[in-house]
C-alpha cells in the first residue's frame, strides 16, 4: 500500500518535471528585503502598536515543513521557553521566566487556553493551520487579554486573495513510521473567499535510544554476572494519530464590511510515553490520551474612515480522555485510570477603534466567555458497592473590558494608556492599568517602554479539582515593566536589518503551585513570590547577495532569572533566591537560510541552559539534572516551477548531530531522524 502511494506520488511529480524551470524563493522586487523593517519605523507605525513589544512570525517560517507544530516553530524562532515532554507529547510555552499558564493564547481572537488547566498544548497546533502568528511580550499582552503575566501568543488564519481555485498538497514520510499529509483548497472571487484544509499525521513514534537510566547484566555459564550494559530501548506507548480539518468562509461587501467564519476540528489519539526509568512492558499497557476539539469563530469587521469595528462569536468544544490500562496477563485489558473531561465555551467579543484625530486612537474592547466543564478523574467504589465518578461539574462566566487611548503628539513620540477589568465567576480582579511609550531617537532607532499590573485568576482545576481543588485560592498578581531599543535599517534595498533588546522586570505574588498532601493527592496553594527579570533580544536580517543568492537569518536570545522570593516560613529556606524549577536561565535560537535559485538550505539551532528540577537548584545530584540543550536541524528544499504548477521537495534532518538528550527529566528524545516531503501546487490558471 505504502509502495503504491509513493509510486503514485513520484509519478505525479514526474508529470511536472519536464517543464521544470528555476523559481526563486523570493520576489524579485525590493520589498521582499525591506518588508521586515518597515513596520518598525515609527513614522509609519500603526497607532495600535505604540509601545508594544511584539514579535511576528511570517508565513514562510510557519510553513517550512508540514510536520511542524507551533511548539517547533516557537522553539527555533523565539526566545520563549518551549517545554517538550517528548516527540509528539505535551509542549507548553512560557515567556520571561513565567509558567505555561501565564501565556495567553488566542486563535482568531478567541482565547483557547484550557479553562481547566490554564495552559495550551502547542504540540496540538499544526503550523500549517496558522497563517500568521505573533507574540506579545509582557505588558503588551494586555492589549488582547488579561492574565498573560508572561505574554500572549496570537494565532490567526487569514483570507487569501484567491481568484478561482487554488489547490496545494503536501505528503511526507519519515523516520519512526511517520506519515504526514496536508491538503488545502481555496476558492475565491471579488466577494467570497473559502478555504478548506486537512492535515493528518500518523506515527508509530517508536524511536530507539540508548537508555542510560537502566542497566542490563550479562552472566557467565554459572549464572554469575560478568558484565553490564545500557540497553537500547524503544519509546513505549508513544504512537500519534492526529487529524485536523479547517473550513473558512469570508465575504466582503462593497461597504467595507467583512464577514468570516472559521471552524477547526481536531481529532487526536496520542500515546503518553513511559519514562525511561519505567520497567513496565509497553506492550502490556495502554497509556494514551484522546481529544476531539471543535473551535469555531464567526466574525464581522468594518473599516471606515475614522473607525474600525469588529465583533466575534465563538464556540469551543473539547472532549478529552486519558486511559491507563493494562493486560491482566490473559489478553484482557483492564482500566486503571479513566479520566474524562468535557469543555464547552461560548465566546462573544466586540472591538472598536476610533480615530477622532489623525494622531489619536481610542480603543475599546469587551470579551466574554461562558465555560461549562465536566471533569471526572477516576471512579471510586462507594461504601454501598456502587461506582461513583470522582470529579466536578462547574460553569464559570468570565469577561474582560478594556479601554485605552493612544496618542502620537509628535512624529517622534507615541503614548498609550489603558485600563482593563476582568470578572471571573462573581469576583472582579482589581483594575489593571497599562501604559506604553515609544520615542523615535533617530530614523533607525526607537525606544519603547511599558508598565502594567496584571492578574491571573485560578483555573477551574485549581478551584474545583477533586481531590485537591482549593476554592480559597487568590489570583496571582503581577507588576511588570519593560524598556528596550528597536533598530531597523535597510541598505540599498539589498540588506535589511532589524534588531531589538529589552529589559523586563516583573514581580508576581501568590504564584499558584500544586503540592502533594499526606493523603496521596495534590492541592494548589498560593505560595510563591517570584521576581522575574532579564533581557530579551532578537535580530533579523535579509541579504540579497546577488540575483541568484539570498541569505536570511534570525536570532533570539533571552536571559531570564526567575527567582523564588517566597516567605521562608512557608517555603523552604534553601529555595529562596533560587531559579524556579524548569525555567532556563538562558535560551536562544537561530535560523539561517541560504537560497540559490530554486534551492534553499535552512539551518535551525536552539539552546536552553540547564533546567533545575529541584527548588534548591541542586547541581550535585547524579539523578536530577537536565543539562543544557543544543539542537540542530536542517531542511533542504528544491522547487520546480512549471506551467502546470509548482512542486517542491524537502528533506528535513532533525537532530543533525545525532545527540542523545532529554528535554524533560527521564523523557527521552529521538536521535537523528529524517523526513521527506513533496509539496504540489497545481496552477489552474494556465
Amino acid at each position, binding site marked *: 500500500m505504502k509502495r503504491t502511494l509513493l509510486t503514485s506520488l513520484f509519478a505525479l511529480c514526474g508529470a511536472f518535471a519536464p517543464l521544470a524551470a528555476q523559481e526563486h524563493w523570493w520576489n524579485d522586487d525590493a520589498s521582499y528585503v525591506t518588508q521586515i523593517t518597515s513596520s518598525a519605523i515609527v513614522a509609519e507605525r500603526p497607532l495600535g502598536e505604540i509601545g508594544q513589544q511584539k514579535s511576528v512570525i511570517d508565513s514562510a517560517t510557519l510553513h517550512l515543513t508540514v510536520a511542524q507544530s507551533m511548539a517547533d516553530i516557537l522553539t527555533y524562532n523565539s526566545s520563549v521557553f518551549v517545554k517538550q515532554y517528548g516527540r509528539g507529547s505535551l509542549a507548553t510555552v512560557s515567556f520571561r521566566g513565567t509558567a505555561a499558564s501565564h501565556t495567553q493564547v488566542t486563535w482568531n481572537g478567541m482565547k483557547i487556553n484550557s479553562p481547566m488547566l490554564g495552559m495550551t498544548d502547542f504540540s496540538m497546533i499544526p503550523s500549517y493551520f496558522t497563517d500568521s502568528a505573533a507574540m506579545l511580550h509582557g505588558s503588551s499582552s494586555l492589549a488582547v487579554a488579561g492574565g498573560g503575566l508572561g505574554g500572549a501568543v496570537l494565532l490567526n488564519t487569514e483570507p487569501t486573495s484567491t481568484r478561482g481555485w487554488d489547490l496545494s498538497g503536501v505528503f511526507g514520510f519519515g523516520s519512526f513510521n511517520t506519515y504526514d499529509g496536508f491538503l488545502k483548497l481555496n476558492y475565491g472571487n471579488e466577494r467570497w473567499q473559502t478555504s478548506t484544509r486537512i492535515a493528518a499525521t500518523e506515527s508509530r513514534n517508536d524511536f530507539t535510544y540508548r537508555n*542510560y*537510566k*537502566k*542497566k542490563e547484566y550479562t552472566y557467565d555459564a554459572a549464572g554469575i554476572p560478568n558484565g553490564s550494559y*545500557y540497553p537500547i530501548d524503544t519509546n513505549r506507548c508513544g504512537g500519534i494519530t492526529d487529524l485536523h480539518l479547517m473550513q473558512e468562509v469570508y465575504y466582503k461587501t462593497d461597504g467595507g464590511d467583512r464577514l468570516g467564519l472559521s471552524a477547526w476540528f481536531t481529532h487526536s489519539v496520542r500515546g503518553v510515553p513511559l*519514562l525511561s*526509568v*519505567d*520497567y*513496565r*512492558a509497553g506492550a502490556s499497557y495502554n497509556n494514551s490520551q484522546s481529544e476531539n476539539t471543535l473551535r469555531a469563530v464567526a466574525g464581522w469587521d468594518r473599516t471606515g474612515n475614522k473607525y474600525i469595528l469588529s465583533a466575534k462569536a465563538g464556540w469551543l468544544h473539547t472532549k478529552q480522555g486519558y486511559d491507563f490500562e*493494562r493486560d491482566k496477563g490473559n489478553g484482557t485489558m*483492564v*482500566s*486503571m*485510570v*479513566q479520566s474524562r473531561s468535557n469543555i464547552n465555551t461560548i465566546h462573544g467579543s466586540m472591538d472598536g477603534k476610533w480615530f477622532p484625530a489623525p494622531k489619536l486612537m481610542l480603543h475599546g474592547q469587551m470579551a466574554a466567555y461562558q465555560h461549562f466543564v465536566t471533569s471526572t478523574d*477516576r471512579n*471510586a*467504589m*462507594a*461504601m454501598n458497592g456502587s*461506582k*461513583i465518578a*470522582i470529579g466536578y461539574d462547574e460553569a464559570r462566566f468570565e469577561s474582560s473590558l478594556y479601554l485605552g487611548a493612544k496618542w502620537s503628539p509628535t512624529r517622534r513620540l507615541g503614548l498609550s494608556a489603558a485600563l482593563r477589568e476582568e470578572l471571573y465567576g462573581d469576583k472582579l480582579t482589581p483594575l489593571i492599568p497599562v501604559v506604553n511609550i515609544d520615542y523615535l531617537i533617530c530614523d533607525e532607532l526607537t525606544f519603547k517602554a511599558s508598565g502594567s499590573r496584571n492578574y491571573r485568576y485560578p483555573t477551574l482545576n485549581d478551584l474545583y479539582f*477533586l*481531590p*485537591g481543588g482549593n476554592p480559597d485560592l487568590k489570583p496571582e498578581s503581577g507588576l511588570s515593566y519593560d524598556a528596550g531599543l528597536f533598530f531597523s535599517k535597510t541598505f540599498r534595498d539589498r540588506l535589511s536589518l532589524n534588531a531589538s533588546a529589552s529589559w523586563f522586570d516583573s514581580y508576581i505574588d501568590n504564584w499558584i503551585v500544586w*503540592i*502533594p498532601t*499526606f*493523603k*496521596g493527592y495534590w492541592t494548589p496553594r498560593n505560595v510563591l513570590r517570584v521576581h522575574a527579570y532579564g533581557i530579551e533580544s532578537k535580530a533579523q536580517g535579509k541579504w540579497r*547577495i546577488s540575483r541568484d543568492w539570498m541569505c536570511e537569518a534570525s536570532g533570539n536570545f533571552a536571559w531570564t532569572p526567575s527567582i523564588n522570593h517566597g516567605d521562608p*516560613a512557608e517555603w*523552604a529556606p*534553601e*529555595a529562596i533566591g533560587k531559579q524556579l524549577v524548569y525555567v532556563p536561565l538562558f535560551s536562544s535560537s*537561530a535560523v*539561517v537560510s541560504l537560497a540559490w535559485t530554486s534551492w534553499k538550505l535552512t539551518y535551525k539551532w536552539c539552546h536552553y541552559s540547564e533546567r533545575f*528540577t*529541584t*527548588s*534548591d537548584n541542586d547541581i550535585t*545530584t*547524579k*539523578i*536530577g539534572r537536565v*543539562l*543544557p540543550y*543544543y*539542537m*540542530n536541524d536542517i531542511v533542504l528544499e528544491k522547487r520546480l516551477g512549471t506551467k502546470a504548477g509548482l512542486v517542491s521537495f524537502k528533506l528535513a534532518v532533525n537532530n543533525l*548531530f545525532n*545527540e*542523545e*538528550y*532529554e528535554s524533560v*527529566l*527521564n523523557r527521552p528524545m529521538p536521535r537523528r531522524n529524517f523526513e521527506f516531503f513533496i509539496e504540489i501546487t497545481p496552477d489552474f490558471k494556465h
Partner: protein
Amino acid sequence: MSLFRRILPLITLFCAVSCMEYGPAQEETFATDLSHRGLFIICEGNYMYGNASLSYYDPETKEIQNEIFARSNAFPIGDVAQSMTINNGLCWTVVNNSGVIFALDPVTFKEKRRITGFTSPRYIHFTGSGKAYVTQIWDPRIYIVDPDKCTVTGYIETGMDFETGSTEMMVEKDGYVYVNCWSYQNRILKIDTATDRIINELVVGIQPSAIIKDGYGKLWAITDGGYEGSPYGHERATLVKIDADNFVIEKTFTFDYGSTPRGLTASGDGKTIYWINDGVYSMDAASETLPAEPIIEPLGTIFYALIVDPTNGDIYVSDAVDYTSNGVMRRYSAAGNLIDTFRVGINPGNFCWREAQ
C-alpha cells in the same frame, strides 16, 4: 566559493556549541562498615520525575551517603521509591511507579536481583516459606513472587477492582498476613500464608494508610479519613487498635477533624507507638487515651515520615521541606532532644534498618 568561506565559521560555531553532556553516570564503590548498624532512607522523589533515591546513614559516625543506588550502580533507582525490606541478606527496594523491585547488596549497594512484571508495587513482605507478597495500587491483586527466581508465581485476589484496588503495608502474626487497603478503601485483610487466600477482612474506617504490630501482639492502624468532597466519604482520622487473634477492633482513638496523622511506627520493644500529627507523638501501647502533647513540637515545616531506632529509642523524623528540594532528616533522642540533622534525597518517606554483623 568565497560565500562558503564566509559561512563556514558560522557553521563551525554552531557545531562547537552543540555538544551535549549526556551519557552514563560514574560508578562508585561503597564498602560500608558491617560492624555498624545503618539506616536506609527511601526518598520517593517526585511523581513522574524519576528522581527517587536511597540514602544511607551511620548513626555511630553520623555519616550520610546520598543517592547510593545511582552512585553504586550508575543508573537511577527510578520513579517513586516506596519501601525497603531486608531479607536473606538483600535489601529489597520497591520502586512504585517504575514497576520494579531491586534487591541490593546491603554493603556495596550493588544491584543483585530484580523483579519486574508489577503494575504499581508498594511493599514486599517475606512469608518465611520461600515466597513473598507484593502489594499494589491500581491493581487489586497481591502478587506472589519467588525471590530466588525473581518471578511472579501467582496472585491473591482481593475482590476489589483495578480502578480502586489498593493494598498497602503488611504485618505477619502466627502465619497470617494482615494488609491495610488504603486508597478509597476501608479495611484490613487477613491472609492465610499457607493457602495464599484471604480468610477474613475487618472494616476499620476510611482509608487505613498504615499498619504495624506492637510488642503485645496487637495490630495498630491509622486511617486518614479520606478528604472533603470524596464520594467515598470523609470522617475524622483514627488510630485503631486491633486484636489480631480474634480480628476485631479493640479500641478506636479519634483525632480532631482535619488532622492527618501518619508515620505510624513502634519502639524496638513494641511497647510504645509513635506517629506524626504536625508534631511527633508517642503513646504507651497499653494506654487508653491519646497523648495531649507531642514529644517533638512541630517546627512549621513538613514532618513527612518517622522511624525509631529499636536499640536506643532515638527518633528519626524526615522533613519534606517543600516537596521539590532535598529533604532533611532530624535525629532526636528518645526524650526528644535534637542529636543530628542531615540532608537526604527528595521526599524521604520510608526507612529500613540494617543490623550490624
